[in-house]
C-alpha cells in the first residue's frame, strides 16, 4: 500500500461520495412564483400591484443569479399587467414568455389577439 494508492483510493471515494450527495441543480429560478400565483387565486390580502412588484423582484433576482426564470413567470406577470389596465407591459411580457418558451406561442398569440379584439371593441 503506497502513499499514492491511498491518495488515489481516497479521491475515488471522495468522488463517489460527491456523486452520491450531489443534488441536481434546479433548471429554473422559481422564487416566490407559486406563492404569488396562490395569492392571486385567493384574491385577498395582497393587491395586484404588490403581486406585480413581487414578480418583478423575482425576475430581477433570477437575472442577478444568472438563472432562467421558471416557465409561466412572464405569462403570469403579463396577465397581472392586463388586469391593472397596463396593456403595453402586458403584451410585452406575453411576448417575452413566447420568446423564452416557444411551446407557449399558440396560447400567447391567442391571448394577445383577444386583448387586441377587446381594445378594438372598446374603441368603437
Amino acid at each position, binding site marked *: 500500500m503506497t502513499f499514492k494508492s491511498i491518495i488515489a483510493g481516497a479521491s475515488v471515494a471522495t468522488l463517489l461520495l460527491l456523486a452520491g450527495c450531489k443534488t441536481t441543480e434546479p433548471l*429554473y429560478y422559481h422564487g416566490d412564483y407559486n406563492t404569488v*400565483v*396562490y395569492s392571486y387565486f385567493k384574491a385577498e390580502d395582497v393587491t395586484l400591484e404588490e403581486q406585480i412588484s413581487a414578480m418583478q423582484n423575482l425576475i430581477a433576482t433570477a437575472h442577478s443569479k444568472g438563472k432562467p426564470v421558471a416557465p409561466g413567470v412572464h405569462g403570469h406577470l403579463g396577465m397581472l399587467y392586463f388586469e391593472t389596465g397596463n396593456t403595453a407591459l402586458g403584451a410585452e411580457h406575453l411576448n417575452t414568455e413566447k420568446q423564452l418558451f416557444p411551446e407557449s406561442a*399558440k396560447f400567447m398569440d391567442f391571448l394577445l389577439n383577444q386583448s387586441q379584439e377587446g381594445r378594438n371593441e372598446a374603441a368603437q
Partner: protein
Amino acid sequence: MKLLSKLAVIAAIIGLGGCVSMPDPYDYSAFKAADPKSVIILPPVNNTPEVIAPYSVMSQLVTPIAESGFYVFPVAVTEQTFRANGLTVAQDVHSVDPAKLHDIFGADAALYVSISDYGTSYVVISSETRVTVTAQLVDLRSAQVLWTGSASASSAETQNNNNGLIGMLVQAAVNQIFETVTDRGFDIAAITANRLLHAQGYNGLLYGPRSPNYGQPVASQKK
C-alpha cells in the same frame, strides 16, 4: 468470520428495507412514444370540503413538472381563460374534448388532477395536515393516457422522522407580504406535488426535453 455474518445480516436487512414499499415500475412506453414537450394543468376536481384546495394544489404542481423538463402553462392564466369561456367548474373542463384543448393552448399534454385529502383532520393524539392527489397525464393529440399516479404527504411525517425532508422542501416565502397567504396545506401540497410528479421520484414523470436528463431512464426503470 463473525464480522462477515454480521455484515450479511445488515445487508439482508437493508435489502429487505429497500424492497418492501416499492410498487411495480410504471410502464412508460406510451409516454415515451408520445414524447410531450408541454403540459397544461387543468383545474383540479376537488373531493374535499376545502374550497381553497384546487388553487393551492394547482399552484404547487407547476414546479416539479417544470423541473422535470417540460414547459408548463401559467396556471392562473389558463384558469382565467377557462372562466372567460364559461368553464367555471373543474368537471366541465375535464370533459372538454382534448383536441379542442390542443387547438386553443397548443399544449401537447394535459394533467387531469383530483384531490381526495386537503387539510387538517384530528386523529387520536395530534392533528395532522394531509394532502392527497391523483393525476393522469393525457396526450391531447391522441387522447391517450400517458401516465397516472397518486401521492400523499402529511405534516405528521416531520414528527415521526427527523430527516428534515419537509423542512427542506418547504421554502419560506422571501417576501413578508406573502407570509399571510401561505398556510400549512399549501406547504404540504408542495411535497405531495413533488412526490407525485418529479422525474427524480419513483414512478414520477419521465424527463422532458428541457431537462439535461432527457431520454435517461427514471428511478423505477433502473434495475
